[in-house]
């Protein structure tokens, strides 16, 4: 490939497509974190006392903790006093009631991201709760959802309107003591989504939220809680991308899923935060705690993620299989290029009898990136006849990147069946030549091979997301062959 190496280099160095900054006036709290800041956040949001108390408890506990350092990640020190913990678009009181009233600059931002909210929402029948910085600015399809009894609203709204549900479920899947970043999130979380599906209801549409970081130097602390009551079903989509920045931005989200008896939650993510430049400058730190609790018998939680962005990803969407016969699934594609680092995987904790879990992880590493799969399969003595199947495949592009697999298994029940398969491969020159000989350009050939590698995961995504995910893969790996 020597004659083509310069072209390849050009392609690798192509700038981040979604790098831009929207100039919207923001109402931002000065950097720094103490109890007063937390009180201020809570007051600005008009929260009830229980919420403030919980935040303060979390903050106290966080102060006793130190950041985890077991991951295979090289993280520059973060000064938490340099971060501003609240930022909201101005004029929240006269917030828009429909898309027509939305700040045109915001709509323009979505346009650039290829998210024509308007058409997408109408054509695809997707209810969109768009999060811009910390406060949700537009919510659609409320009527149709309300008819089915589904609650889908910004988290901050749920705190005001459904405090009994928040108080009952918040922190029951990811306690504030869980880990350093979860504790921080619990103290300062800005906004996010809240979903409640009542008993026996099949949510009439895919629920979708687009997250986006915009104001400079503002950490985002999303908090999402989804409750699927007995016999209900919901599919939730989350996608994000961020503008170009020089400074690292911290993103420490928490997502809690509760599946009651016979309920099913499908949670899909396409993550495309700004990954930093080719020298590793800038880029988002994505430290996320996501966990699903299969509380009821025969309940199911299914995670599908496509992780393409962020300078550093630290994320393990997990399933607690408490109910008998409950099912946990984790389908993941993690792509790293240039100097990106990802340490991602899942935990499947089998507690109930006849519980089943499936893990399919695809890691793609290019440039000088490091990509790690870390997964735990834990079978409790109570989990008779538990089953797990794990498949971890790594694809390397070039000879300066790394792929690592750390599968942990703790099996305390003799009749569990746990299978693990792992492969590591390189995109072979002969595969590329074969495709090129049929007439495909090198770039198209790489895209095709990579998409083939990811197929088992992509087919778990809702249709319109699968198309986006493929496009994203192509952008993320442009020319990354050497």
């Amino acid at each position, binding site marked *: *490939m*020597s*004659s*083509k190496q310069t072209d390849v280099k050009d392609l690798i160095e192509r700038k981040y497509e979604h790098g831009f900054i929207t100039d919207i006036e923001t109402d931002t709290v000065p950097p720094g974190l103490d109890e007063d800041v937390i009180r201020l956040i809570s007051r600005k949001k008009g929260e009830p006392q229980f919420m403030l108390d919980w935040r303060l408890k979390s903050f106290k506990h966080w102060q006793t903790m130190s950041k985890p350092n077991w991951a295979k990640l090289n993280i520059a020190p973060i000064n938490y006093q340099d971060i501003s913990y609240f930022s909201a678009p101005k004029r929240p009181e006269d917030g828009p009631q429909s898309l027509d009233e939305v700040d045109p600059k915001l709509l323009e931002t979505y346009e650039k991201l290829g998210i024509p909210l308007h058409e997408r929402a109408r054509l695809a029948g997707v209810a969109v709760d768009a999060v811009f910085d910390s406060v949700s600015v537009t919510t659609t399809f409320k009527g149709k959802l309300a008819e089915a009894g589904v609650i889908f609203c910004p988290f901050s709204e749920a705190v005001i309107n459904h405090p009994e549900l928040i108080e009952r479920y918040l922190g029951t899947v990811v306690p504030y003591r869980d880990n350093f970043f979860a504790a921080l999130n619990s103290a300062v979380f800005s906004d996010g989504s809240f979903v409640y599906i009542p008993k026996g209801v099949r949510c009439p549409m895919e629920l979708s939220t687009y997250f986006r970081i915009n104001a400079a130097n503002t950490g985002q602390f999303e908090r999402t809680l989804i409750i699927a009551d007995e016999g209900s079903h919901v599919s939730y989509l989350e996608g994000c991308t961020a503008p170009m920045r020089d400074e690292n931005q911290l993103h420490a989200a928490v997502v809690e899923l509760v599946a009651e008896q016979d309920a099913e939650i499908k949670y899909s993510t396409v993550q495309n935060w700004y990954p930093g430049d080719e020298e590793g400058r800038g880029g988002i730190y994505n430290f996320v705690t996501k966990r699903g609790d299969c509380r009821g018998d025969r309940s199911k939680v299914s995670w599908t993620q496509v992780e393409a962005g962020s300078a550093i990803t630290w994320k393990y969407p997990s399933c607690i299989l408490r109910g008998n016969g409950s099912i946990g699934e984790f389908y993941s594609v993690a792509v790293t290029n240039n100097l990106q680092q990802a340490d991602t995987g899942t935990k499947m904790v089998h507690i109930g009898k006849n519980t089943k879990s499936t893990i399919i992880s695809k890691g793609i590493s290019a440039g000088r990136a490091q990509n790690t799969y870390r997964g735990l399969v834990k079978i409790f003595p109570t989990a008779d006849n538990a089953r797990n199947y794990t498949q971890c495949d790594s694809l390397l592009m070039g000879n300066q990147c790394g792929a690592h697999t750390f599968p942990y298994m703790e099996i305390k029940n003799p009749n569990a069946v746990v299978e693990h398969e792992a492969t590591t491969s390189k995109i*072979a*020159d*002969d*595969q590329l*030549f*074969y*495709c*090129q*000989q*049929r*007439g*495909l*350009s*090198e770039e*198209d*050939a790489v895209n*095709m*091979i990579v*998409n*083939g*590698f*990811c*197929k*088992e995961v992509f087919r778990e995504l809702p249709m319109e997301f699968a198309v986006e995910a493929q496009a994203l893969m192509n952008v993320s790996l442009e020319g990354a062959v050497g």
Partner: protein
Amino acid sequence: MLIKINNLHVSVNETEIIKGLNLTIGEGEVHAIMGPNGSGKSTLAQTLAGHPNYDVTAGTVEFAGQNLLDLAADERARAGIFLGFQYPVEISGVSNIYMLKAALNARRKAAGKPEIDAVEFMRFVKEKAALMKLDQKFLTRGVNEGFSGGEKKRNEIFQMAVLEPKFAILDETDSGLDIDALKVVANGVNQQRDDKCSVLLITHYQRLLDYIQPDFVHVLANGQIIRSGDKDLALELEANGYDEILAAAKA
């Protein structure tokens, strides 16, 4: 004249394999290249297709009025060159027809034609699959994934039938085929020939030439064509082996 190879020298890892080869192939002609192992047959095939590991150190190749050596492998393919691989590559997760459609559209785009209509494409592909007696399930399976040796070779000719090249190089397409599969493959090639496709057949055995009658047969040895003739030359080789011809060439 479709392709004209003049004084071609090719090295792989600094070792010269092709040492001054001359060959001219006209439109719709079928040329067979035979020769002992290590004579440079596959090197010739890979070089013409544009594999980057093969360095052309001297000589020229003219193809349909263009300097072939200026073009990258994918440009050559779009210009109408097809290589039937001796060892077809597996690409898991990419379906056979997905790749074919992408390849066909890349060619059409290069020719300034619009993308093929999806319904039209399926009709066309099914027709070609039937011709190659390929079960339709092969269309949606991963490219060569889990195919037997014979299925892979049939798949190569099926792809050729869909892509309709101007010039097909078939590198030991007959190896590993039973007699029925050989007939199917030969039938596929003969149909292309009727459509004015020129073919360079690389083979060890005369057997294939019973089904695809070549216009010319060449013997390649030590990186050069040492003898050319009509199809009777293949019969002579079958009867006497290469030793006699090699000895005659040295003398």
